[in-house]
């Protein structure tokens, strides 16, 4: 594609807003701006249309919500009681699974050894499997330390499920970080599995790499 000029006139913004509205309504899963742009006529700007749409649905029965790098329409939380028919019986997560999930979310990317260090017990295979199956966590990049352990990060599905715009919006994240509670401090005198400085550098990387692919 060498020609940059669109072949047809770009639809007016109000029309683009309608298109974004139709696409978001039709999809149960969040759509990225790229997804939308690909499906719209050339020259369209879904981001701008999306902002208009978002404002339009403020205070309505459904909202336009951000999920990581994607967007979705979701019902307003205060109307949940009307949807009892739609409620899926959710399997209750074990305490171990919930804690493991929280540790992955707040410490990502995090290795299994680190999760065990924080919880003080071994992480059972079933716990990780369950979280993977729910598609709330996925494998992140391998850690560049001896043994190259795999890391875990949370997914867009996790953000969607808990109504988080980004992983930075996790409740209390800032306070926890300020209190140093998200740092990995090995037991004094015992060389940790990895260098502490590396770990500190890793965290912002982890946050930004969350939705890279």
């Amino acid at each position, binding site marked *: 594609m060498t020609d940059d000029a669109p072949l047809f006139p770009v639809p007016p913004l109000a029309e683009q807003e309608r298109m974004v509205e139709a696409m978001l*309504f*039709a*999809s*149960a*899963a969040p759509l990225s701006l790229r997804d939308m742009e690909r499906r719209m006529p050339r020259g369209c700007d879904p981001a701008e249309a999306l902002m208009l749409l978002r404002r339009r649905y403020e205070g309505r029965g459904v909202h336009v919500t951000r999920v990581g790098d994607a967007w*979705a*329409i*979701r*019902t*307003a*939380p205060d109307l*949940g009681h009307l*949807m009892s028919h*739609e*409620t*899926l019986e*959710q399997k209750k*997560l074990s*305490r*171990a699974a*919930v*804690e493991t*999930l*929280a*540790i992955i*979310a*707040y410490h990502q990317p995090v290795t299994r050894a680190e999760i065990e260090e*924080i*919880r*003080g*017990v071994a992480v059972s295979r079933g716990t990780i499997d369950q979280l993977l199956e729910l598609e709330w966590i996925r494998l992140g990049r391998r850690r560049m330390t001896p043994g190259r352990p795999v890391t875990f990060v949370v997914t867009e599905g996790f953000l*969607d*499920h*808990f*109504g*988080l715009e980004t992983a930075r919006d*996790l*409740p*209390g994240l800032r306070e*926890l970080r300020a*209190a140093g*509670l998200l740092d990995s*401090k090995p*037991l*004094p*005198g015992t060389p940790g599995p990895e260098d502490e400085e590396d770990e500190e550098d890793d965290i912002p990387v982890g946050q930004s790499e969350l939705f890279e692919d």
Partner: protein
Amino acid sequence: MADETHLFEATSVSERLAAEALIVDVDGFEGPLDLLLTLARTQKVDLRKISVLHLAEQYLVFVERAKALRIELAADYLVMAAWLAFLKSRLLLPPDPEAEGPSAEDLAAHLAFQLERLQAMREAAASLMARDQLGREFFARGEPQGIARVRRTEWRATLLDLMQAYARIRTRDEFRPYAFDRKDVYTLEQALDRLRTMIGFSGEWNELSAYLPEDWTADPARWRSATAATFLASLELAKQGQIEIRQRENFAPIAIRARTEPRDR
């Protein structure tokens, strides 16, 4: 040990029940750190101000007590007990400037950090689960269009198809079966018949156009059709060895004559 009273001679009934639960429910703890955190809470102070020495003593009492009640403790509880006994002795002794490795205070601070961090993660987990959740408080599109249908065959018919189909059936009698209109088409069969009959009477070269049926030469469409069919027929007869074909130059008239001698095969 004097500290034993702290845990097992609790004043209120509920505290005593809680203390007993600690013993009975030892399997309910997720490891020594979990137990330590529970014990630390009985100090009823900010985790940051916890007395690790006191905590170590509480833990050791707990382990002794469990042993007395013949409760099997997992190995990691005993490892922790040994480590805490060591830590306790270090904390009670004046620091040895010659000693290698981290100070007792460093070790105590790290244990306090671990407990605080575990507690923080538990609270984070609780606040996460207390959030509005998809499929519980808020909902996605119940009947997604498109994406959900991907990867399966979707039989399509439009309203127009439907109406046209109906119209087709209801007006079927108005149509005659479709047949190609042959009024102006001279067929290869006709040409072959005519050529076969006529060629036997002529041993001379005659232009192909002479073989066209008379009433097919006036109308251009009929003439074209008859010419094409006759030419094809001549090729067919030549192939069969019944006639010879000649053309002096490009676009010159084509002439044919009957073949007198059989072609050598």
